């Protein structure tokens, strides 16, 4: 509370969205009554609207990726809370095109349920709707977790690739197939050296003993299943990269797209250090690094940590990745 600059408890997200809407009025529209953001300009060839959403606190995800070549709309929930199904339903209606609407959903129970209910309402309303589920978090890849792997960093990569595919006029089925296939070829691992601070209290969500890292941490302040000792960033990145490669087994035709992502308050110096180590490990393992992003793309408020995402990509995926994009947070 003292720590956060805000106008009062519960105002953080609403105030941010209205500031965001003004700051990027050339790119997006904000429907304050129903709580969603839509793109002002989209490719005329697009036949399916792309909608994403989830809890707030992960900025620039998702509203930062609304714009040309990426998302048609985004529904931000309260901090770390799923958006409401009505919000999703109305946003879906607003962005649906003749070919329907595609929901890009991170695998969390609340998100699945609310997007699911919205989908049932859309079916009622005669609007075609399908879902791509993002579930890249290797730390939650376990027999004991029926809920499946969480969705995290890969979301940005999928939204980019699917946006470019949608711009070619690809239909709902094609997008689901492309996105689902791609989601299976993405894995992420995250570590943190300090928790985020809860907006309500200004206190850290958890306290780590000095010299320990939360290894396999999520993006909602939930702790990881285990901690580990702090190591040099070289050792840490090598261990993480090898775990990701083992899970992914990129084919001989594949190269990888890497996302080195800050979770909130890790410095840019550290992120570039991580990227340097990642590059070295991939070189040593003979894996071609085709594309990369280094920065804060999927955050957890002000958590001090980073995540590594690898996506095994073929030529066609890279072409979609390279297509122009113009959103508040991603542009080329």
């Amino acid at each position: 509370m003292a720590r956060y600059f805000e106008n009062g408890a519960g105002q953080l997200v609403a105030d941010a969205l209205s500031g965001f809407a003004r700051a990027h009025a050339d790119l997006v529209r904000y429907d304050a009554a129903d709580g969603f953001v839509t793109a002002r300009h989209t490719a005329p060839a697009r036949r399916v609207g792309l909608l994403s959403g989830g809890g707030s606190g992960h900025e620039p995800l998702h509203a930062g990726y609304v714009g040309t070549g990426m998302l048609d709309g985004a529904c931000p929930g309260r901090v770390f809370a799923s958006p409401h199904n009505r919000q999703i339903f109305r946003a879906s209606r607003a962005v649906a095109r003749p070919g329907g609407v595609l929901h890009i959903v991170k695998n969390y129970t609340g998100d699945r349920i609310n997007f699911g209910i919205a989908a049932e309402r859309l079916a009622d309303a005669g609007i075609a709707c399908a879902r791509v589920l993002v579930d890249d978090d290797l730390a939650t890849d376990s027999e004991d977790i029926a809920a499946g792997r969480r969705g995290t960093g890969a979301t940005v990569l999928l939204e980019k690739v699917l946006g470019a595919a949608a711009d070619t006029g690809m239909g709902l089925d094609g997008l689901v197939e492309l996105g689902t296939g791609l989601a299976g070829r993405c894995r992420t691992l995250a570590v943190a050296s300090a928790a985020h601070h809860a907006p309500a209290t200004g206190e850290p969500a958890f306290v780590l003993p000095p010299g320990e890292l939360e290894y396999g941490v999520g993006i909602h302040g939930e702790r990881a299943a285990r901690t580990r000792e702090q190591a040099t960033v070289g050792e840490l990145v090598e261990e993480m990269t090898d775990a990701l490669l083992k899970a992914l087994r990129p084919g001989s035709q594949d190269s990888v797209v890497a996302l080195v992502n800050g979770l909130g308050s890790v410095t840019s110096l550290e992120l570039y250090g991580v990227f340097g180590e990642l590059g070295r490990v991939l070189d040593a393992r003979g894996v071609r690094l085709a594309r990369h992003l280094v920065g804060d793309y999927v955050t957890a408020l002000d958590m001090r940590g980073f995540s590594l995402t690898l996506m095994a990509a073929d030529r066609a995926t890279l072409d979609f990745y390279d297509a122009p994009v113009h959103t508040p947070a991603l542009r080329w």
Partner: protein
Amino acid sequence: MTSSAFDGERTRDWAGRFAESVYATEAELTALDQQAGDGDFGANLAAGVRAAGPLLDRVEASAGPAEYLGALATAFLDEVGGTSGPLFGLLFQAMGRAAGPGPELTTQALREGTAEGLAAIRRVGDASPGDKTLVDALAPAADALGAAGEAPPADALAAAAEEAWRGVRETASQAARMGRASYLGERATGVPDPGAVGIALFFSSAVGTVRSLAPRLGGD
């Protein structure tokens, strides 16, 4: 022995008692979700019954059960975020649909509505019995209604409530496999599932107000 006719007025009273039960136990629900989840379940459920209040008041005096259940459904589906709110909404929606346009709620309609609600919740939330979710209270309640035959609706609901509470108590020994608690592995074991408690509160409220969870969570 309760009267066998379960009309609109009795449905409205049921919804009213459900709200009372939720308000009375909100702190206990919060405490449960703090141990097994993120601590907002009590607030979420209370937000639902609070939103339902004005909608229930607006239903005409002559209305049948379906309209009261529909008011509950609208409130939970449209006003409550998070995981559990819309799941409760799906149950109320299915029960309202099964109630049909008639003036009375039959045991048959309760049986069908609960079964359909359970199916919708499982379709959307993908949880199986044993995953330590509200399904573990709703499935036994649906079974009890399935076995109620031609019993009067109030008796059938009382049996459903009994079974729901039994299901709640069983969740305490289960390891969470769905929802946030699952990421923590063993840490949530020993705590009954808050969402399951909410379901049991709903069926219990058909016959009375619940003022404290402790006695119902206690023994076997």
